[in-house]
C-alpha cells in the first residue's frame, strides 16, 4: 500500500517503529495531492508552507494522538489566519482571528493540517455542487458527486489526500458523503463535540465529526475532538469516553432494530440488497435483529426543512457587510449595503433557505410552521428513545442511492430527498455512523448507517468495527 492509503493507526505504528518519519508522511500526502487534486478538487486551501509548520513542532508533540498525521478540515471550521470561506463569496477573503476548538485540539494532538476542504456553501446542500467556487469530484467516478455538504472532506479521505478529515453534519453532511465516497463518517451525539469556531448553519442540529478510512481511525479522532468546551454552551460535560476501547469484534446479544417504514420507502434495489446482506452477516455473528416500527422518515425531513432554514435565517443574518466578509461596491446607503451584499454574497440555495426560514418564523406563520416542526421534533426524538429502550442500535441505509451523477438533480426537493435516512438522526440529536458495506454494479460504494442512543457512540463503534472485519472491504481504495 502506498503511504497515502494508510490509516491513522497504521501511520502511527510505522512512526513508532521508525519505519516512517512525519516528514516522509507529509511529503507522501503532498505529492498525492499534486497527483490527483486537479481531478478531484477536494481542497479550497492547501496549507503547504503557509501558516504554522506543524512538522517543526513535532518533537514537542510526539506523544500527541495525531502526531505527524495529515488531517484535512472542512472550510467552515475557523482556522486562525487561514482563509475560512464556507465555500461562499460572502467569506471568500475572510481569515478568522481564532481557531475553532476542534482545530486547537488537532493542533495540540500534533496533527498536520493539510488544508481546508470544499463544501456546499454554508453547509447547505447534499452534493458539494453548491460551492461558490468549484465542484468536487467523487474519487470512485469523477463524473459523480462526492455527496455533501462535507464532499471535499470525504473525497480527500477517499483519494488519499489526507489520512482523515473533519466534516460537519446538520442533516447528513458527514454521513451521506462518507457513504458516497466509501469511507467511514460519524456524526456524534449533539453536544459531544464543541461547535465553537464552526460557522453556524442550524445551531440545534450542527455537529462536527470524523471522516476516516476505517472505524478505528474514527475512534481515535473522536478521542481527540470530543469533550466539553466552556466556550460552547451547548456542549455536554461528563460524557466523553475512550472510544478505542470499543474496538472489539463482538456483537453477540446486540439488539439491532430495522425500521420497516424506512426500508419500505422507495430506494435503489442494489443499496437495499447490500445493506440487508450486511445485516445477515451481523446476525451470523450473533446480533439479534428485529423489525421495528418508527415514524415515517419523511416527517423528519419535513420538520428539518422548517427547523434548519429557520435557524439558518437567524445565523446568517450576521452577514451584512459591516464587520467582515464581503461588502458590496454598490453600498450608497445602509439598506443597499445590506441587500446588495447579501445578493452578491449568497448563492441560490442559501437564499432559498434563508427565505423559507424567515417565512416560517414570521408573524402569522410561526405557529403553523416553526412551532409545529418543533413539536414534531419531540415526537421523532421520543420515537428514537422508545426504540432504544429495547434495542442497542437502529440500522438503515445511509443514502437512498450510491453517489449521484454531477448535475443530475436540478430540483431542490429531489436533492433534499437524498438525506431522507440521515436527517431524522439530527432531529433527534442521536449519534450515527455510516460505514461502507459494499459496492453496486458500477463499483460505486454503498453505505450502511448505524444509529445509537444519545451517548451511544461506543455501541456504534463496536458494531461498526465488527461489521468492518466481517465484510473486509475497508482496504479497497479508489483508483485514480
Amino acid at each position, binding site marked *: 500500500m502506498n503511504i497515502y492509503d494508510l490509516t491513522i493507526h497504521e501511520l502511527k505504528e510505522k512512526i513508532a517503529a521508525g519505519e516512517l518519519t512525519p516528514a516522509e508522511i507529509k511529503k507522501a500526502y503532498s505529492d498525492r495531492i499534486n497527483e490527483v487534486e486537479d481531478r478531484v478538487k477536494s481542497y479550497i486551501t492547501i496549507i503547504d508552507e503557509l501558516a504554522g509548520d506543524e512538522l517543526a513542532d513535532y518533537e514537542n508533540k510526539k506523544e500527541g494522538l495525531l502526531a505527524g498525521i495529515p488531517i484535512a478540515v472542512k472550510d467552515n471550521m475557523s482556522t486562525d489566519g487561514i482563509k475560512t470561506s464556507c465555500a461562499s463569496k460572502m467569506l471568500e477573503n475572510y481569515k478568522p482571528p481564532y481557531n475553532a476548538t476542534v482545530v486547537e485540539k488537532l493542533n495540540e494532538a500534533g496533527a498536520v493540517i493539510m488544508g481546508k476542504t470544499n463544501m456546499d456553501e454554508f453547509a447547505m446542500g447534499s452534493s458539494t455542487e453548491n460551492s461558490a467556487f468549484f465542484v468536487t469530484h467523487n474519487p470512485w467516478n469523477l463524473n459523480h458527486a462526492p455527496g455533501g455538504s462535507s464532499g471535499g472532506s470525504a473525497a480527500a479521505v477517499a483519494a488519499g489526500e489526507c489520512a482523515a478529515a473533519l466534516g460537519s453534519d446538520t442533516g447528513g453532511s458527514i454521513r451521506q458523503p462518507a457513504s458516497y465516497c466509501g469511507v467511514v463518517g460519524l456524526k456524534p451525539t*449533539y453536544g459531544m463535540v464543541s461547535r465553537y469556531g464552526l460557522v453556524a448553519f442550524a445551531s440545534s442540529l450542527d455537529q462536527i465529526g470524523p471522516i476516516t478510512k476505517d472505524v478505528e481511525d474514527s475512534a481515535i479522532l473522536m478521542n481527540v475532538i470530543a469533550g466539553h468546551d466552556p466556550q460552547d454552551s451547548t456542549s455536554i460535560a461528563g460524557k466523553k469516553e475512550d472510544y478505542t476501547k470499543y474496538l472489539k469484534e463482538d456483537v453477540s446479544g446486540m439488539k439491532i432494530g430495522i425500521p420497516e417504514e424506512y426500508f419500505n420507502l422507495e430506494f435503489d434495489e442494489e443499496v437495499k440488497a447490500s445493506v440487508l446482506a450486511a445485516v445477515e452477516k451481523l446476525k451470523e455473528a450473533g446480533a439479534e435483529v428485529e423489525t421495528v416500527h418508527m415514524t415515517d422518515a419523511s416527517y423528519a425531513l419535513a420538520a428539518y426543512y422548517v427547523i434548519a432554514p429557520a435557524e439558518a435565517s437567524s445565523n446568517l443574518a450576521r452577514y451584512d457587510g459591516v464587520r467582515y466578509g464581503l461588502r458590496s461596491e454598490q453600498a450608497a446607503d445602509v439598506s443597499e449595503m445590506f441587500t446588495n451584499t447579501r445578493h452578491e454574497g449568497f448563492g441560490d440555495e442559501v*437564499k432559498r433557505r434563508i427565505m423559507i426560514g424567515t*417565512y416560517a418564523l414570521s408573524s402569522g406563520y410561526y405557529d403553523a410552521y416553526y412551532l409545529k416542526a418543533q413539536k414534531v421534533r419531540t415526537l421523532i426524538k421520543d420515537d428514537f428513545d422508545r426504540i432504544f429502550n429495547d434495542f442497542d442500535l437502529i440500522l438503515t441505509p445511509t443514502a437512498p442511492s450510491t453517489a449521484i451523477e454531477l448535475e443530475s438533480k436540478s430540483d431542490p426537493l429531489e436533492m433534499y430527498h437524498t438525506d431522507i435516512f440521515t436527517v431524522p438522526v439530527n432531529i433527534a440529536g442521536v449519534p450515527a455512523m455510516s460505514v461502507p458495506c459494499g459496492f453496486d454494479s458500477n463499483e460505486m460504494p454503498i453505505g450502511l448507517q448505524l444509529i445509537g442512543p444519545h451517548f451511544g457512540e461506543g455501541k456504534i463503534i463496536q458494531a461498526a468495527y465488527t461489521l468492518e472485519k466481517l465484510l473486509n472491504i475497508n482496504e479497497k481504495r479508489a483508483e485514480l
Partner: protein
Amino acid sequence: MIDKKDVEYAAGLAQLKLDEEEKEKYTEQIGEILNYVDKLSELDTDDVVPTAYTVPMKNVLRKDEVKESLPREKSLANAPDEKDGHFRAPKIMSD
C-alpha cells in the same frame, strides 16, 4: 400556497434583494418545498411540548469574571472599511 408577494415579504425581512426572474423562480421552488412541509399537519401534536434542543440542559451559566477577549486589531482585521479603531459603514440616519 405561497405567491410572489410572500417571497417579496420574506426577502424584505431577510434583507435580500431579488430581481423579477429570481422572484418567479423562488416562488415556484419555495412553494414546492412548503407543500412538502405541509405533511407535518398530518401528525397530531396537540399535547406535545416543542423541542428546541435535544440535550437536557438549562441555564448554562458562568461566573461573571473578566477574561481575555479578542484584541481590537484582530477584531478589525477583516473589516471592509475601518477608521480610528471603528468599523465604518454608510450613514444610517438621513439628514
